[in-house]
């Protein structure tokens, strides 16, 4: 079990009386791609946000790269970590959002190098060099000095991926990265994600792109109402689902 990247155990999360995650347990090996599917409001985004402690959880444990996220365990007691320690943990987890969330007052290159320079303390010249390489990797070498508003949605999302990669994360989280995009722009973003997966990046992807899941995922998890209903190989879950809830969901999206 040395190469376990994510180990979520019985994760619970509620907003007030609304129990959103109802005991989610799953593991992701290093280099694996996990796709999470499920109906709207089932808790997919919430689960991702718990993984990098953007949300604190009400029960269970999350280990990323053998580190307990957000807490320090002493005996049987969990002590919440200081904000700077949580920030440190987040550095090794990249996140890509449905609505890109690029920093609009910075150019594409500035977006990419802001955290390496300001957070990781990398030399600005070096960061710039790496930033340009990353932009080239996502096919945007000539867009470095464009502001986000001057880029298409697909280009913005690729900058966002480059920005997350710039912190050299061990794990990448994608929350419906293509669902805000025009259909003809989806392919470029998925291509970048595929090549990332091929290069061995550990990824958790919430998506409605069944084609992508089928082609890239090592494992697919179907979540409904905060519980894992079914999980397994993509072929198994997508083509031969066992549970009626999975079947009816797949019927609707396919």
């Amino acid at each position, binding site marked *: 079990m040395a190469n376990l990247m994510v180990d979520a155990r019985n994760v619970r999360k509620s907003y007030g009386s609304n129990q959103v995650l109802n005991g989610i347990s799953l593991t992701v090996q290093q280099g694996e791609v996990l796709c999470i599917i499920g109906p709207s409001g089932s808790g997919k985004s919430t689960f991702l946000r718990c993984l990098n402690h953007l949300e604190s959880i009400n029960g269970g444990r999350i280990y990323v790269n053998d580190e307990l996220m957000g807490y320090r365990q002493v005996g049987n007691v969990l002590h919440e970590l200081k904000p700077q320690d949580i920030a440190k943990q987040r550095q090794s987890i990249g996140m890509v959002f449905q609505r890109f*969330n690029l920093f609009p*007052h910075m150019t594409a290159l500035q977006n990419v190098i*802001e955290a390496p320079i300001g957070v990781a303390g990398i030399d600005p010249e070096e960061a710039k060099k790496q930033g340009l390489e990353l932009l080239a990797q996502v096919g945007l070498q000539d867009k470095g000095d464009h502001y986000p508003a001057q880029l298409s949605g697909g280009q913005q999302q690729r900058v966002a991926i480059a920005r*997350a990669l710039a912190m050299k994360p061990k794990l990448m989280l994608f929350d419906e990265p293509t669902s805000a995009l025009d259909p003809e722009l989806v392919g470029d973003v998925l291509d970048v994600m595929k090549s990332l997966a091929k290069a061995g990046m550990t990824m958790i992807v919430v998506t409605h792109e069944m084609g992508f899941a089928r082609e890239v995922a090592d494992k697919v998890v179907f979540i409904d109402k905060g519980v894992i209903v079914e999980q397994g190989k993509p072929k198994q879950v997508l083509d031969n689902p066992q549970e009626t809830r999975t079947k009816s969901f797949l019927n609707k999206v396919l």
Partner: protein
Amino acid sequence: MDLSDDVVAVPLRHPWRWISGGIATALLLSFIWAVFSATSIQHDIVTKFLFDPRILIGMGVTVVVTVVCMFIATVLATLLAVMKLSDNPLQRWLATGFIEFFRGTPLLLQIVFWGYLGIIFPHLVLGVPYTDIVFLSGKTSDLIPAIVAGIIALSLNEAAYSAEIVRAGILAVDGGQVEAAKSLGMSSSYTMRRIVLPQAMRVIIPPMGNEFIGMLKNTSLLQVIAVAELYTASSTISAANLAQIELLMVSGFWYLIMTTVLGVPQRALERRYGRGFEVVGGRSAPRAFKVGKR
């Protein structure tokens, strides 16, 4: 039909703009005429005192006090806004109390209070309580001259108003920005400084320009505690020569010049913090719609 490239686009005409503009100009000209032709106003006195050294020095004091006060107020306001948005209830409570107190009492009253601090506390001692350690001690009126009292009064009052402007600016920034910053491992103070505040500036600057102009004019209230700013200078002169209206015109003229000049740095700041935002629908957009010969 020949669909040539040489299409001439005729812009929409706006006749009412011209008509209303004409009426406004006519009214303005007749007002200026009325002022200049009034025999009760001695124009030679106006021109004589326009560049009087006392007036010019007063103007300098007004500018310095305005800039210093706005600087202090902006720093304090940012602090107050962040405190008011903090998770810590004590900080929220302190900031709210400060804002309510300074917004809830008249500015003139606050100025007089700080000006007369020397009567309430004739001696000021700065040191460690219940020990003999004293850093500073003396007569209050020496330690806090009128101009300092005026600056304190105006800055604190302005901070209370500006805090709400800064807070509104911070709230206008999309929550996704903070999430993205956090996910990159940025601390909350770093996020505030590098991600949130620069974007909030776009919303903050126009109303702060207003506040700046308001401050410039409010410095005239410092006349009541005898700070030698522009209005004090002009009223001191008119108390001697009894040409009240003429000297009001002198100081009014300079106030108008100063508030007009203030628009220049404001526009520069707006451009600076509008970077990355003006692309859609801004100056660069209409280019795509240009029709005609290339």
